[in-house]
């Protein structure tokens, strides 16, 4: 499966896009224990600069997909992955400490904190947003999607963010989880 014909993110500079690799995923069949789910991911090639909206029912396994399937595989490919987790209020403490270790004082506002934490991201970095719109303002979500990064994958229940270029849906049938194109 090749998700072709999708537009590249407009805010990215043309010269950096030309020599950046696409993100190749799958085909994978991965068991995740616990919670005892098997993920069947088809072969997917996403062009550099893709902004992906990932949807699915509650309990379909989107967070497990991001944290236990996608993140470790992207990290193993040598990618720098920034995950804004669903429990962002807890992660904020880690972000504040990380900023302190970089010699910065953590901003009070959660939106500014996340932006400051993401600041060292490089053009080949990947950002995963797991329902970040529950805690962050639409403006910050827009800014995060606009960052000059290789790929951004956003899970959201509040509809497709307008700047996304691709849509995937996580579908679960008992313990088998599929990744399908389109909402």
């Amino acid at each position, binding site marked *: 499966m090749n998700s072709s014909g999708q537009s590249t993110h407009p805010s990215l500079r043309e010269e950096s896009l030309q020599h950046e690799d696409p993100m190749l995923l799958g085909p994978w069949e991965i068991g995740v224990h616990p919670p005892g789910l098997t993920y069947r991911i088809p072969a997917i090639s996403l062009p550099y600069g893709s902004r992906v909206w990932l949807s699915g029912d509650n309990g379909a396994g989107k967070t497990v997909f991001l944290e236990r399937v996608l993140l470790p595989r992207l990290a193993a490919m040598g990618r*720098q992955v920034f995950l804004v*987790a669903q429990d962002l209020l*807890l992660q904020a403490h*880690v972000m504040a400490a990380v900023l302190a*270790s970089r010699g910065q004082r953590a901003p009070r506002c959660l939106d500014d904190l996340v932006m400051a934490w993401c600041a*060292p991201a490089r053009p080949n970095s990947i950002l995963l947003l797991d329902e970040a719109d529950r805690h962050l303002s639409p403006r910050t979500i827009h800014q995060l999607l606009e960052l000059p990064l290789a790929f951004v994958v956003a899970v959201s229940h509040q509809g497709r963010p307008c700047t996304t270029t691709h849509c995937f849906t996580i579908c679960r049938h008992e313990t088998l989880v599929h990744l399908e194109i389109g909402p």
Partner: protein
Amino acid sequence: MKGTAKLLLLSSLVVLYFGLGVVGPWYADVPFQGSIAALCVLLRLQTSGWRGLRTDLAFLLPFLCTLVAMGALLDAFAMANRTDWTEDALCKALVFPNSFWSIQLAVGALRLTDLVALPRGVRRFFILTHALVSKSRPLIERLWWLVCHDPSLQTGPWIIRSGRRLTVLLAAALIAVYHETEATVRVYDARMALLEENPS
């Protein structure tokens, strides 16, 4: 059984085991330690089921394996001119789970109502600490996961990376657990005030 009697019985059983099996004459008595281990496993199965036992083993086994491996290593180098390190390690590998289970079973058998007889301050400390440890354990595990996957803490040699991660974990854990403590203390005080108003 009344709270005070239960507290006394449980503490006596634990003290008895430690007196005989850990510091006492039956430390290296394999049949005794084996029987205690079997009894603990049965009780653990009864109270927490297979899931509880699996969690315990996941906690114990890595430690026991390291313990035995270290014993063998020290034997190989004849450390301190001794050749009984493996034997000693195997003995500890039996005593350690027993000590662990005896405490876990005793703590697990205690209910909130059993602590009523304790002095007010001690009771408050025990209840709050017990609640906080069980609430904060998953919190710290989750923080550790987030720290380990933070892209800013992925570089450098293993020892430096681990050290940096631990510093971030400590700082993040302090702030996260402090909020949890504040909330737990608030709930505890509110419940106690309610109980004092309506003792029935």
